[in-house]
């Protein structure tokens, strides 16, 4: 039988769209000039980068000068948090974030703690929601920066960022409080208008929306105090030094435009498939539980715990059957701790370790969902048959393994 390949890990990364690749190609070896060059090919590159910046700004609803191209979501998060925190250090040293942020934010906050900032990590409810009252209560006269993600990468929960930003600004005793959102997971499905969101800074990563890897965007509202984290030449308005990755910039803009144009159709398609997948799993396999919010979740995200079996073991079997998904256990990344996000929602380490994330994309089909639903029950059954936890349940209700 022909080996199928079913890719359902779009939250990890996405394929570059053919039209995006095509848009990028001229800037590798034809119009390869340095955009700072005054000659022809330099100016061609400059023009392309300027147009790309304009495209991105029109989708974010901001000025082109407020768009900084970076090397990815991680850099955007780092630059936003460090750049703003260091700029505001004299005014206050308190930062607020949530416990379910991506490590690009969490580890940056931990670094900032080491250099003298105080960070409040807001806990979330069982669905992964940050509570607005907790946020309001956490604000002190020392608070200078708040960073709450737009949508979570593991469980897909969508945070009401615009409400948070509005309330934070209204509750702050001073106006210098800055709001950053990591919008990396929301780019292809959520409205990114920065004024509607009410944010001062926003991070994007191109490879999550069919753009190239190693490219990101940082939106930085005009007038926001910011200390560049990468110093050198005057590129990106003196806020991020280094010769522009013109092909990457062009690809990022092309991909973001495509994402914005297809946002509704793609969301609808993904949600329909996602719902079929969730329902199929929950009804066909006993002892399975949906993680995250039942409705306020990314339309492409299904995160499910399969009680009594370990996520990686299911994944490996799925891979042998041609299905690519991911687990919340991150065992392979060298951090065998169960997902900090799942634990933050209050589930047990075992259930966190039993989780899988399927994230569908525009190219997935109904047949592929059916295929996954046809192989998954057998895999789970086989693994459960060798689980000491199942044996314990059958023997004595799980009271003694």
């Amino acid at each position, binding site marked *: 039988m022909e080996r199928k390949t079913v890719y359902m890990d779009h939250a990890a990364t996405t394929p570059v769209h053919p039209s995006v690749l095509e848009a990028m190609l001229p800037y590798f070896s034809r119009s390869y000039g340095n955009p700072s060059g005054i000659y022809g090919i330099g100016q061609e590159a400059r023009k392309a980068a300027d147009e790309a910046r304009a495209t991105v700004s029109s989708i974010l609803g901001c000025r082109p000068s407020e768009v900084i191209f970076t090397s990815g979501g991680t850099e955007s998060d780092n630059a936003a948090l460090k750049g703003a925190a260091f700029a505001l250090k004299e005014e206050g040293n308190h930062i607020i974030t949530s416990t379910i942020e991506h490590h690009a934010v969490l580890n940056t906050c931990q670094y900032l703690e080491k250099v003298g900032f105080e960070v409040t990590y807001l806990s979330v409810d*069982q669905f992964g929601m940050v509570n607005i009252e907790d946020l309001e209560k956490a604000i002190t006269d020392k608070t200078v920066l708040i960073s709450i993600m737009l949508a979570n990468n593991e469980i897909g929960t969508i945070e009401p960022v615009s409400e948070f930003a509005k309330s934070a600004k209204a509750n702050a005793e001073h106006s210098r409080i800055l709001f950053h959102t990591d919008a990396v997971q929301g780019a292809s499905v959520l409205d990114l208008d920065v004024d509607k969101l009410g944010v001062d800074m926003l991070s994007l990563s191109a490879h999550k929306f069919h753009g190239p890897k190693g490219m990101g965007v940082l939106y930085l509202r005009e007038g926001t105090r910011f200390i560049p984290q990468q110093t050198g030449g005057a590129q990106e308005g003196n806020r991020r030094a280094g010769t522009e990755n013109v092909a990457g910039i062009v690809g990022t803009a092309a991909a973001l435009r495509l994402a914005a144009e297809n946002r509704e159709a793609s969301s609808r398609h993904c949600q329909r498939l996602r719902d079929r997948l969730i329902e199929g799993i929950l009804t066909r396999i006993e002892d399975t539980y949906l993680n995250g919010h039942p409705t306020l979740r990314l339309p492409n995200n299904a995160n499910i715990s399969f*009680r009594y079996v*370990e996520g990686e073991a299911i994944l490996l079997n799925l891979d042998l059957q041609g299905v690519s998904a991911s687990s919340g256990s991150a065992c392979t990344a*060298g951090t065998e701790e169960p997902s900090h996000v799942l634990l933050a929602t209050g589930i047990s380490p*075992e259930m966190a370790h039993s989780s899988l994330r399927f994230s569908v994309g525009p190219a997935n089909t109904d047949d592929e969902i059916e295929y996954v639903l046809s192989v998954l029950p057998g895999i789970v059954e086989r693994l459960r048959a*060798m689980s000491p936890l199942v044996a314990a349940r059958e023997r004595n209700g799980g009271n003694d393994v």
Partner: protein
Amino acid sequence: MYSDLVLEHFSNPRNVGSIPDADGVGLIGSSICGDMIKIFIKVKDNRIGDIRFQTFGCGAAIATSSMITEMVKGKTMEEARGVTNEAVAEALGGLPPGKMHCSNLAADAMNKALDDYEGKGPRKSRKPLIDKGFGVRGGREMPSEEMKRPPER
């Protein structure tokens, strides 16, 4: 990331199951990842006659469980003790970095089963055994309370 042999043992694990009248049982939970392995042995003429395992764990945990049961079958107690986690990993054609603790899990469960048989451990203990062996972040009582309860939602 896994060798073909690891995948082969993972896909077709040997000696899965339990032995109701086992002579020795070893249960160990990893203090690193929370996974667990339970090994049952039946001893005949001071040799491991029959051996079974149950594993809640990653691919490496399942493959090493399977491999270690193959390696110690028919061996004397002393020989079985000599089968180290490195030996198991080697027999599997190596494990990815960051996955060595999974082979520890199998080797430690094996030693617990031998201890249990030889009466060093709490023999046929009703209490689950606790792993304190890895020197990393201390052991965890298995099974944890949460595991018995249905998840709260």
